[in-house]
């Protein structure tokens, strides 16, 4: 089932939790709502489920307006952040609940119900724990029971609120791969909320990046990572280095660096920010051409498994930038702390400062304020 969201608004008192959300989720996709806490992603998920009502705007399931439909009748599966398992029921009864509370006419007979629950138990690989109570399960097991319970009613849409948020790193990685495989088997339209970029990049078909109640970008993992639409998306996904400069008549000047920026043909001495990923930087021993490099000193070298991270000190202001390269590349020319290098960004994206400042300055990972 496809989900279409049009002009959704929601306020809590003076706080705008959702501000004009427009979004289409094609049938059968696994979509991540990604953003920092308080960006409205959970509210959006709860409104899709019918657990909250929007102030304005519409949600269509397969083209059909849903606002009149009670949460009971929406045929959604919802997995709560803390699972909300029924503490006084066994795993079996938790999963069977949605079937047992159906009106008598559509309630499956007991043998069919048992077969269905057992099928789900084997799907989540917990057949042997059917008689246990939620308090006797580990976090990952509870998570899977919550998922099976949601799937038991054969929902048209599966909604998951921070499904792996309460788990430790190792279990989280296992479970999200499992969720991806499960989705590939079942193909039920699924939306999950997360604040973990790695999780979204690894699992989702589409990522909806949200900030301050608005959608910043919608796209595949490659699109949002390689071509961020806004400074916020740049900062939120992956590590970045930030350089301050000015845009003027189609050119951007960042200290010693001068770049063509035809999109800013009309700009006149406007402050600009340039974003560069740490792995999109080349370090040279010799200066190339004067306009395409910056000078810096290596201040620290860290070997991080297959990667090497170098911290650079840029002489005039003393700010720090980060560069990442593979072990092999580093081995070809092992730089040491104190070495003088010339910095050449391979790929760099410039935003005018007034655009950049309209988004909240959330900094994930290292960034260097250059020159």
């Amino acid at each position, binding site marked *: 089932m496809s989900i279409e969201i049009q002009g959704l608004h929601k306020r809590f008192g003076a706080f705008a939790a959702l501000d004009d959300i427009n979004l289409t989720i094609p049938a059968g996709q696994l979509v991540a709502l990604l953003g920092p806490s308080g960006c409205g992603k959970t509210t959006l998920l709860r409104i899709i489920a*019918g657990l*909250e009502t929007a102030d304005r705007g519409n949600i269509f399931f397969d083209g059909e307006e849903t606002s009149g439909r009670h*949460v009971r009748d929406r045929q959604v599966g919802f997995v709560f952040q803390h699972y909300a398992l029924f503490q006084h029921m066994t795993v079996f009864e938790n999963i069977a609940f949605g079937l047992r509370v159906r009106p008598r006419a559509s309630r499956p007979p007991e043998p069919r119900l048992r077969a269905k629950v057992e099928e789900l138990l084997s799907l989540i690989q917990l057949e042997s724990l059917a008689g246990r109570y939620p308090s006797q399960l580990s976090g990952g097991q509870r998570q899977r029971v919550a998922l099976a319970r949601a799937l038991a009613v054969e929902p048209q849409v599966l909604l998951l609120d921070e499904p792996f948020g309460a788990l430790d790193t190792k279990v989280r990685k296992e479970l999200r791969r499992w969720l991806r495989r499960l989705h590939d088997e079942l193909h039920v339209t699924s939306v999950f909320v997360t604040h973990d970029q790695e999780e979204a990049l690894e699992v989702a078909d589409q990522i909806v990046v949200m900030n301050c109640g608005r959608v910043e970008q919608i796209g595949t993992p490659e699109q949002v990572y390689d071509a961020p639409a806004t400074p916020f998306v740049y900062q939120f996904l992956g590590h970045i280095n930030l350089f301050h400069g000015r845009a003027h008549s189609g050119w951007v000047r960042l200290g010693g660096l001068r770049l063509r920026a035809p999109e800013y043909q009309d700009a006149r001495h406007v402050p600009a920010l340039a974003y560069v990923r740490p792995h999109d930087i080349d370090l040279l021993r010799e200066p190339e051409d004067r306009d395409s490099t910056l000078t810096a000193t290596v201040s620290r070298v860290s070997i991080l498994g297959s990667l090497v991270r170098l911290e650079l000190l840029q002489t005039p202001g003393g700010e720090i930038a980060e560069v990442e390269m593979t072990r092999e590349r580093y081995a070809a020319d092992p730089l040491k702390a104190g070495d003088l290098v010339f910095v050449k960004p391979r790929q760099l994206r410039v935003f005018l400062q007034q655009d950049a400042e309209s988004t909240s300055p959330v900094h994930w990972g290292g960034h260097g304020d250059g020159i």
Partner: protein
Amino acid sequence: MSASPRQPSVLPGFNLTLGLAVGYLSLIVLIPLAMAFLKAFQLSAEEFWAIVLAPRVLASYRLTFGTAFLAAAINTAFGLIVAWVLVRYRFPGKRLVDALVDLPFALPTAVAGITLTTLYSSNGWIGQFLKPLGIKVAFTPSGIVVALVFISLPFVVRTVQPVLEDLEAEVEEAAASLGAGRWQIFRRIIFPAIRPALLTGFTLAFARAIGEYGSVIFIAGNLPMVSEITPLLIVGKLEQYDYRGAAAVSVVMLAISFILLLCINLLQRWGRLRQV
């Protein structure tokens, strides 16, 4: 009361449950209370003040609040020790003792009244030892204090106990590692943490003690001006069919009780703020 949902919720039954709760509460509690105030205000201001400030009534306030304060203070000191011992130390029979602390909540006050009177009368188990010392407890104001200590005993223990349990041992260990002595740790670390609970317990005990009737009337002797508590005075006025007089004195008591209730709420809020 204007009670409107601030936020619509998917859970059902808001109007039904709120309506029933407010309706029931109004019928059983609020309307009767309002009627008592109305009754008292049928009196002119001079009449009202003449009744509630009569010497016999003033003496009863002094006695009621004085003995209640003393009993609450005694319970604050001993209640803290009892709570401390129950949380921190191991000793045989601890669980039984812990359960027994609630006895005054469960025991009807009349039973407490006749038992304490028998114990503290001049030939009772305890009274016979006090008599040679020239101490008279039963049928004197000190008897009232004894009864009030009994009925308000659990309050301080039960408010302080959970706070003591939740205190992190690490904080005390940290203080000890910084060179603080045991008494310094108590005074500077533990006491500030339990102070809101201690005050709440004191106020709860005090509020309970000023309204107490059943246990006190047996042991007090009930002499006007000497050992007559305010609730008994109200009953006396009622028995003489002086409804307005009874209502007037009750309104004074109610006003004080409401102020205490407000204090308790504020204290508990303060305690919660402290915990965060």
